[in-house]
Structure formats: structure tokens, C-alpha cells
């Protein structure tokens, strides 16, 4: 029964998505047919997501131990690929988060892309693609086989590509979409190779078999490092994070979907699924920890200087995912998943609230906002909750989950627990603490620039949005506030971090004690610095204190340019060389052979076209030669 529910989980939105794709594309004019297609699309999308949520909740209630079911998908000599589900309580929790965010995004989109919106004639494919996206992520969540996980993994990539390119008015959207897919695909080269290594080694790509098999240490390290490349691509970890800020070209609900529960969460989740393999090596956690530290600080610093509200949130996602991968590196998958869940709640909240702001103001640039608190009280309070959770203000959700991560890092650094070397734990712990200051600072800055102070420009009476936009935000405020408290319950902790058979105790998610004080002090430092800076000059952007570094941070440390110089341009040049070489050299030889044969034939033909005297002389000479040869041969053979 549980296995059936597990299979049903991705199947429900998949069917909704496939049927949705078949809906007729509406004409550009607002005709009755167009509206009915829209209604059908809305109904399909919402039903699919709601169905998935119902199944996920049922699974959450029923699954309390590891449940597996699988059937052979493809049986090759020496490699069995299966189709099956692997359900545990953590998977059920993540599934609930995914389905809930997807449902809210579907509802929010109805209000966000209104019938009079210029993109609305493509509402049916848009809603269907969200459904497919959800189905793909849920496939990753329940997958009991690495190849099956890869299917969900990459389908998610292509759905993000389609959805980021949705807005036809943004000229940068197609490029951003292509970048998102290609950067993650480059990581997926490693992911596929890693799966191939593990699958071939274990003789099966079923996760249970791969985990149970005793891999050779060298192979295991290589395979896990390759898998990490895919994880870095999907979860936007340095150096494959460059696609995420650009992906803001997508409609805001899509950003919420990508950043909160799907796509970026998939990488972290996949590592927790294979955690025992990663933890069995020493190199892999070290690499993971170092990239986590770099990503965490990089994202936080870049977030401090952005003017675009959505880009601040995007960079903050990069930074927060750094906390999760760091938690994995120091051996706390439970803490990583806990932060993943709270982050899903507050980041979805922040994006949807930002969508309401952008909707009301007509721009995403914070330099043109201000004083929105009066006109949009509901959005203000919700954003306050979201930013508080992001910065880690007690008792909001992010406070507890971030504390869990930092406590794990502290334990690994001071006591040497966890699979990563101590110096890695130290560097991640320090980076995490610095990150707390930075996060508090930029969260405060966002709040001050958008909702507080005076309006920068006379705005056309900003107001809280319609119910369709308001309710999803309000609903998300509940888990963004309270989910952290769940971490105090041992039952919840046991669900997220199921005790391995050989260890008796489940690790605590939340450590109430003096350790909580350090992040709190740092939080106050961050908030205080921002507030003081603002007091001094109320009209200016607090980011001016960054001085000359500001431009560097805005440009995300110019890593885009580095990527362009080191990868994109050489590949393009290589492509031109390959094309020329193929046409001039490889095909040139072929064409040259043809031409040479023709000119040889032509030459011989010319030789044979002669006037009568020379032709007659030629014939006589030939006869003479043949006669001579005959005589000589006859003489030679008779003698």
C-alpha cells in the first residue's frame, strides 16, 4: 500500500502535466475559448498539486520505517536497472514540502498571470510545466533507483529551462534559461558517470544495492566526487552556482518553486539519500565542506550589494544551500534536511511576497521602493517573518534549523565528530558564523529599503494584492514561523535523521544551551550595523559602506565573466575550428579526391583527342610496341 502511494506521488502531477500539455494553445485574442482553456489549465494544475499533497500527507502518516518496493526496468548483463520507490519518513516530509509549495505556487500563479497579462495565451503550457516540474521533483524524492532518480533530476532541469524562458517580454529570459540548463547539465556529466561507476560496481543501480555493496575505496571516492559535480550544479554550489541569479528572469512564482522546494533542494536531498557512501570516504566530505564554506560566504556577500529584490533572494538561496551542504560535510544529514524544510517555507514565502511587491510597484529594483509598509501591511508582516527566519531570529523557523547546522559544525570542529577533517569543520563553522552576521545585515537592508522609510518615488498607491496572491503568502507564514519548534520534538528529529542500525541514539536537531548565544550575538551585530548605517544617512542605501567592493559583489565576484572566458569562449572557438576543419580538411580530402579523379580523367581524355597525323603515328607506334613485345616474349619463352 505504501509502495503504491509512493508510486502515485509523482504519477498524479505527471498525468496532470501531460494532459495539460495537450490543451489547445489559446489564440492571442481574449476569446471565450481562451478563457475556457485557461480554466481547464488552472483546474488541472491545482488538482494535480493538491492530489500530490494529499498522497504525500498520507505517506507522512503511514511511513515510519524504511519501505522499499521495486521491479526490474531493464536487465542488462551485469547491471540491473530497477523502477521502484524507497520511502522513509524523511522522504515523506520532503514530499509534503514539495507538494505544498507546488500547490501554493499553482494557486498564486492564477492571480499572478492574470487573463489580461500579455503572456497569458501560454497559461496552459505554463501550468502543465509546473505540474511536470513537481512530478520530476517527487520522482527524485521517492526514487529507489539511481537511474530513476536521474530521470527526475534532469526532467526537472528541462522544466526549469522552459519556465525560466516563459516571459516573452524579457530579452534576457531565453539566455538565462539556456544557462540554467547547460550549467546544471555540465554537472550532470559527473552525475551520470558517478552513477555508472557505482552501478557497474554494485551490479545494480538500485539505491539499496548500491548502499549495501562493498565498493573499492578509490572507486567510491571517484564516484562520489563525480556525483558531487551534479549536486553542485543542481544545488547551485560554487563553482556551478552561476545559473541561479540569472534564473530570476523567470516569473516570480517559478523562482519560488525553484528556490524553495524543488531543483536546488534536489542536490542536498540526493546526498542525504546516499549519505553513507559519502561519509565512508574522507576526501569527499572535505571537498563538500570547502565548497560549502566558499558558497556560503560568496552568496551572502553577493546578496549584500544587489539592488534587484529577487537577486538578493537568489543569492541568499545560494548562501543558505551552503549551510545545508556544509551540514552534510560535517556529518549531520538530519540538520541539513531540517534546514532544507524551514528554508523551503521561508524562501517560498519571501519569493511570493516579493512577487506581490513587484506586482504592486511594477519594478524589482529596491532603489525605487520604500515605505511600502503603510500600503501593504499584510505583505510587510509576512516579509518580516520571512526575513526574520532567514536571518535566524528566535523563535522563527530559520533560527532553530541554522542553529542545528552550526551546532553540528561546532561539534565537528571542537570534538572531531563527523566524516570531514577537523580543519574543514573549522572553516565551515567560522564561515557559518560570519554568514550569520552577513545574513542579518542584508535581511535588515532589504526590509529598510522596501518597506520602511519614505517612498522614493510617487507610486500609484501600492496595496496588498488580491486574495489569490495573499493567501498563499499567509499560509506559508505559518510554517516559516513554527516549523522550527518542531525540531525540539524528538519524534520529528527521529523522522529526519533515522538512526543508523549501528547507532542507538538519534542525533538531536536542536541544541538548547549556551551554544545558542553566539549566533544570537552575531545576529544582533548584523542587524545593528545595518540599522546604525541607516540612521546616519536615512536616504542612502546601506550598501554604500561596501565602498569599491560593492560593484564586485553586485557582479557576483565576476565569476560569470570567468566562466565565460574559461569555458564558453574556448568552446565556441573550438566549435568554429571544428566546423572549418571538418569542411576544409575532412571534406576537402573527399572533394579533392573527386576533383583529382576528374582532372586526371580530363587530362587523359585530352591526350586521346589528337589530330589525324599524330593519332596515326600513335597507332603505328602502339602496333610496333605490341609486335616487339610479342616477338621478345615468344623468343624468351622458347629459349
Amino acid at each position, binding site marked *: 500500500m505504501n509502495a503504491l502511494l509512493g508510486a502515485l506521488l509523482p504519477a498524479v502531477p505527471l498525468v496532470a502535466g501531460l494532459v495539460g500539455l495537450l490543451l489547445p*494553445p489559446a489564440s492571442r485574442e481574449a476569446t471565450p475559448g481562451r478563457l475556457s482553456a485557461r480554466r481547464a489549465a488552472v483546474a488541472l494544475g491545482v488538482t494535480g498539486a493538491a492530489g500530490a499533497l494529499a498522497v504525500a500527507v498520507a505517506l507522512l502518516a503511514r511511513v515510519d520505517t524504511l519501505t522499499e518496493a521495486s521491479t526490474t526496468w531493464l536487465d542488462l*548483463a551485469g547491471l540491473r536497472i530497477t523502477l521502484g520507490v524507497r520511502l522513509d519518513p524523511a522522504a515523506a516530509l520532503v514530499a509534503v514540502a514539495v507538494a505544498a509549495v507546488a500547490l501554493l505556487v499553482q494557486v498564486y500563479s492564477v492571480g499572478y498571470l492574470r487573463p489580461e497579462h500579455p503572456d497569458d495565451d501560454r497559461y496552459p503550457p505554463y501550468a502543465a510545466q509546473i505540474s511536470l516540474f513537481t512530478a520530476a521533483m517527487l520522482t527524485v524524492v521517492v526514487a529507489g533507483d539511481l537511474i530513476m532518480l536521474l530521470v527526475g533530476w534532469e526532467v526537472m532541469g*528541462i522544466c526549469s529551462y522552459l519556465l525560466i524562458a516563459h516571459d516573452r517580454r524579457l530579452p534576457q529570459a531565453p539566455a538565462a534559461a539556456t544557462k540554467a540548463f547547460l550549467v546544471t547539465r555540465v554537472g*550532470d556529466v559527473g552525475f*551520470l558517470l558517478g552513477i555508472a561507476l557505482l552501478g*557497474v560496481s554494485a551490479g545494480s543501480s538500485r539505491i539499496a544495492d548500491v548502499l549495501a555493496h562493498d565498493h573499492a575505496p578509490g572507486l567510491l571516492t571517484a564516484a562520489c566526487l563525480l556525483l558531487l559535480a551534479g549536486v553542485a550544479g543542481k544545488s547551485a554550489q560554487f563553482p556551478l552556482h552561476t545559473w541561479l541569479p540569472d534564473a530570476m528572469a523567470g516569473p516570480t512564482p517559478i523562482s519560488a518553486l525553484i528556490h524553495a522546494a524543488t531543483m536546488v533542494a534536489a542536490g542536498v536531498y540526493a546526498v542525504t539519500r546516499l549519505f553513507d557512501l559519502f561519509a565512508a570516504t574522507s576526501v569527499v566530505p572535505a571537498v563538500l565542506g570547502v565548497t560549502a564554506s566558499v558558497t556560503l560566504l560568496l552568496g551572502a556577500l553577493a546578496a549584500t550589494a544587489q539592488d534587484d529584490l529577487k537577486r538578493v533572494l537568489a543569492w541568499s538561496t545560494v548562501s543558505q544551500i551552503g549551510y545545508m551542504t556544509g551540514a552534510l560535510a560535517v556529518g549531520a544529514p538530519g540538520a541539513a534536511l531540517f534546514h532544507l524544510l524551514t528554508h523551503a517555507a521561508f524562501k517560498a514565502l519571501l519569493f511570493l511576497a516579493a512577487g506581490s511587491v513587484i506586482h504592486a510597484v511594477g519594478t524589482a529594483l529596491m532603489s525605487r521602493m520604500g515605505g511600502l509598509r503603510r500600503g501593504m501591511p499584510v505583505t510587510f508582516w509576512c516579509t518580516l517573518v520571512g526575513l526574520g527566519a532567514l536571518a535566524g531570529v528566535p523563535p522563527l523557523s530559520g533560527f532553530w534549523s541554522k542553529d542545528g547546522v552550526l551546532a553540528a559544525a561546532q561539534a565537528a570542529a571542537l570534538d572531531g565528530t563527523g566524516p570531514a577533517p577537523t580543519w574543514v569543520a573549522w572553516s565551515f563553522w567560522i564561515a557559518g558564523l560570519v554568514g550569520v552576521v552577513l545574513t542579518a545585515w542584508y535581511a535588515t537592508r532589504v526590509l529598510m529599503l522596501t518597506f520602511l522609510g519614505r517612498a522614493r518615488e510617487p507610486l500609484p498607491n501600492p496595496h496588498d494584492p488580491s486574495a489569490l496572491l495573499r493567501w498563499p503568502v499567509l499560509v506559508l507564514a505559518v510554517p516559516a514561523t513554527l516549523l522550527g519548534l518542531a525540531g525540539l520534538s524528538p519524534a520529528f528529529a527521529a523522522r529526519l535523521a533515522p538512526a543508523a542500525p549501528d547507532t542507538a541514539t538519534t542525533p538531536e536537531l536542536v541544541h538548547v544551551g549556551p551554544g545558542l548565544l553566539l549566533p544570537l550575538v552575531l545576529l544582533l551585530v548584523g542587524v545593528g550595523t545595518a540599522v546604525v548605517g541607516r540612521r546616519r544617512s536615512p536616504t542612502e542605501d546601506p550598501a554604500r559602506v561596501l565602498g569599491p567592493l560593492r560593484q564586485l559583489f553586485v557582479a557576483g565576484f565576476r565569476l560569470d565573466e570567468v566562466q565565460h572566458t574559461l569555458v564558453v569562449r574556448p*568552446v565556441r572557438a573550438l*566549435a568554429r575550428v*571544428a*566546423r572549418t576543419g571538418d569542411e576544409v580538411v575532412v571534406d576537402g580530402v573527399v572533394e579533392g579526391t573527386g576533383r583529382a579523379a576528374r582532372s586526371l580523367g580530363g587530362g587523359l581524355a585530352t591526350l586521346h583527342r589528337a589530330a589525324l597525323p599524330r593519332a596515326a603515328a600513335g597507332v603505328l607506334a602502339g602496333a610496333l610496341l605490341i609486335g616487339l613485345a610479342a616477338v621478345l616474349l615468344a623468343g624468351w619463352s622458347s629459349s
Partner: protein
Amino acid sequence: MTVGQFLLVAVLAVPALGAVAVAAVPRDRAARLVGTIAAALTVPLAALLATGDRTWTSYTATEPAIRPWHRLDLQWVPGLDLRLHLGVDGISWPLVVLTALLTALCCGYTLWRVPPGGSGRALVALLLVVEVGILGTFLALDLVLFFLFFEVVLLPMYAIIVGWGGSTGRDGRPARDAARAAARKFALYTLFGSVLLLVGVYVVVSAAGTADLIVLTGGGELPRSTQLAAFVLLGLAFAVKSPLWPLHSWLPDAHTQAPTVGSVVLAGVLLKMGTYGLIRVAVGVAPEGARWAAPVLGALAVAAILVGSLVCLAQTELKRLIAYSSVGHMGFVLLGVATLTATGIQGALIGNIAHGVITGLLFFLAGAIKDRTGTGSLAELSGLRETAPRLAGLLAFAAVASLGLPGLAGFWGEALAVIAAVQVGGAYWTTLAVLAAVGGALTAAYLLRLLRRVTHGRPGPAVGSVTPVLSGAELTAWAPLVVLTLAIGLAPTLVLGVAGEPVAALVEVLR
């Protein structure tokens, strides 16, 4: 004569008789209809070949490496060692069905639209003759008969390219000279391959004293030197047809200049004669040679993947880009064969089928776009999703399938080739696996570039006037390919379920 034997004959006879009937019917449209019916009838006949008792009854102590489900063995021309020896098994059956299906779709498409140049009935007749040749190649179990069918295809295809080919200009008149040059290159280049094939066939036949593929598979009693020579000759011949880099340069011109239905048949099934021949004849008959040449074959296959993808990345013409993409995709298929493992050969088989379905669809779509806009230049095409959302959506689907998205048909061939190379192990093959996987990322790069150029952005003048309507004939021709792409992607056993045993038997003789 059993039902199976009857089906074997019928699969070849129905399109052959159809071609004759088309030639005999004077009225153009009626003739096309007759041809389409013949082609459509062939599809269920081909599919039914999988029915009946599939177990092999052994007449000898040791089981041969080819165990056909049905076979028919008749004397034909004793002087040439030529027997009418037909059979079908799990390696050939998916290809037979694919050939029948694609030809039927092409004939149906021709009912709706005849490319400018010649009469529709001649085109249909030629398509049916090509079909007979390709089906015969897949069904032949006699080496000389195989060669005969292999050659039947060449001239009708040449005629199709010359007669109906050429990229149509804005005035509606095709540029004939380019088509003629491309067709000449195609015919001469592949004829060069055929000469090698003929020599190879007679090297084998004269050394072994038989042309029976069932007896020959596994190398029989052939000495090592003969096997090496035979593999070089046969391998080169099939490498030209497949095509394997750097013997591919006939392909882009021929595919670009051929009419839509010609491109579909060329890319969809004609190339498969090369890879099928490589698996069944070259590897099967000269396993020693295959083992000896495998590293070279693997390196060239990976070179094809990388060079093909890079060339596509710098390509500026729609059809030419799709044509070049075949070089890269067939590179994955050939890499699978080169590993000489069960996984690799299965990957090659499903890669063959997937490429036929997906590239067939891509060529149909490219033809539809070129017909509507009058241009194939990527610089002039843009914003197709604004004026023709369905067409753009289908193009996106086909491109995404072609870039090997897991869950669609194209994935399995690429993934299994990489997995097989990893399976062989060692530094050399692991490097090849890594490079092939990188080629997968490049494949995504050029297909997304194609989509970005063609579907996104604002409609240019060429695209602005396109109407969004797709004709019923177009949808009928494309729908089966879309469904198959999805079905094979989700259930690869559709293709590989029947291939497991014959591939295992083949790999057995390679040990």
C-alpha cells in the same frame, strides 16, 4: 510454409508489389494512395514477425550465435553462393518495424504534400523500393544476399535526392545543382564503401566456403589473419554508411539537400544499415578482428561525438545542424558497439531505434518549418513560438528528446554506451566514457542553441507570417513518432526486451 515464413516473404513482397502497382496506376493521387496502403500494410506484417514460437530448436550439438525466430532458406543462384535465406530475431526485429513505420509515415505524408520536382507517384514508388532494400538488409541471413539488398537502396535514394531535393528558395523553386552534387557525392562515397563490402564478403565466403550468416557468426573456422582483413574491409564499409567520423562527410550534404521524406528515411533507417551490419556481420563474422580493432573504433566513435557536437554548435542552417547531429548520435551507437559488451550492444540497438524515431521527427519538423518560412537559416528564424506555438512545442520536444533527456528515448542509447565503456574499465575506456559524457553536455548545448534561435525571441519577417495551423496529415505523420519517443523512454524493454538473448549469444562468441 509456416506463418512465420509467410510473414518474412510478405514483409518484402508487399512493398515490392506496392512499388510495381504504383508504377502501373496512371493517376497520380490514386497511385500515391495505393503506395501508402502497401506501406501501411507492411507495418502490421513487420510487427507480427515477433509472434509465434520464438524458441530456437537446435539441430546441432552446439547452439549457433544467431537463433532466428523464423527463417526461410531457399536456393537462388548457386554460382554466386547466393541463397534466399531470410530470418528475423531480436536484433533485427525492432529495426524492421522502425523501417516499415517510417516508410509508411513518409508515404502518408506524400499523400498530403509532394515536394516540388517530380511526380508524387514516382517518389512513392522509389520510397517503397528503398524500403524493400532496407528490410531485406535487416532480414538477410546470407552474406551475399545481404550485400545485394544493401546495394538495392543506393540508386533509388540517389534518384530521390536528385529528383525532389534541393533547398527550396523563396520563389518556390529548388536549387537543383546543389542537390545533384550532394546526391552524386552520396552515391559515389557509399559506392566506395560498397566495393569494400563486396571484397570483404568474398574474402569471408571464399575462406569459409559458405555465406550462411548463422554458420559464419562466431568466426567459424576462419584464421585470425582472414578475420582481421575481413573486419577491416567490412568495418570500413559499414563505417561509411553509419557514418563514422571521419568518413561522414557525404551525410550533411545528402541530408540537407534531400526532400523531407528523403531525409527522414536517410537518417531514420538508412544509417542503421551501417550499424546493424557492423553488429551482425562485421563483429559477428570476424570477432577476432573486432576485438583487435575495438580500441580504434571506440576512439573514432568518441571523436565523432565530440566533433559532431562541436560542428553543430557552429552551424547556421537548420537542416544541416540536424544532419550533423546524426554524426554525434551515431557516435554513441558506435561507441556501444566498440565496447563489445552486452550492455554496449544493447545500448547501440536502442540508440539506433531512438535516433531513427527522434531524428525522423526532427527532419519532419525542420521540413515543415522550411516549407512555411522558405528559409532554414538560423539567423532568419526566430520567435516561432509566437506565431506557431504547436510547431515550436513539437520542435522543443524533439530537440529535448534528441539531447538525451532521461525519460525519453534518446537517453538510453547515450547512457548505456557510457555505462558500457565504464564497464569495460581501465584507463583507456574510462577516458572514452568521460569524453562521451562530455559530448552529451555539448549535445545539449547545440540543441538549446537551436531552440533559442528558432523558437524564442521576436518573430522575424520570415516567421511573422506563419499560420499556427498544422494539417491533419502532418499530425498523423508526427504523432506516432512523439508517442514512440515517450514510450521507448519510459519502457525501454519495448526494444530491448527481445534483444537480450541474441545479444547475449553474440557476446558469448566474442569471448
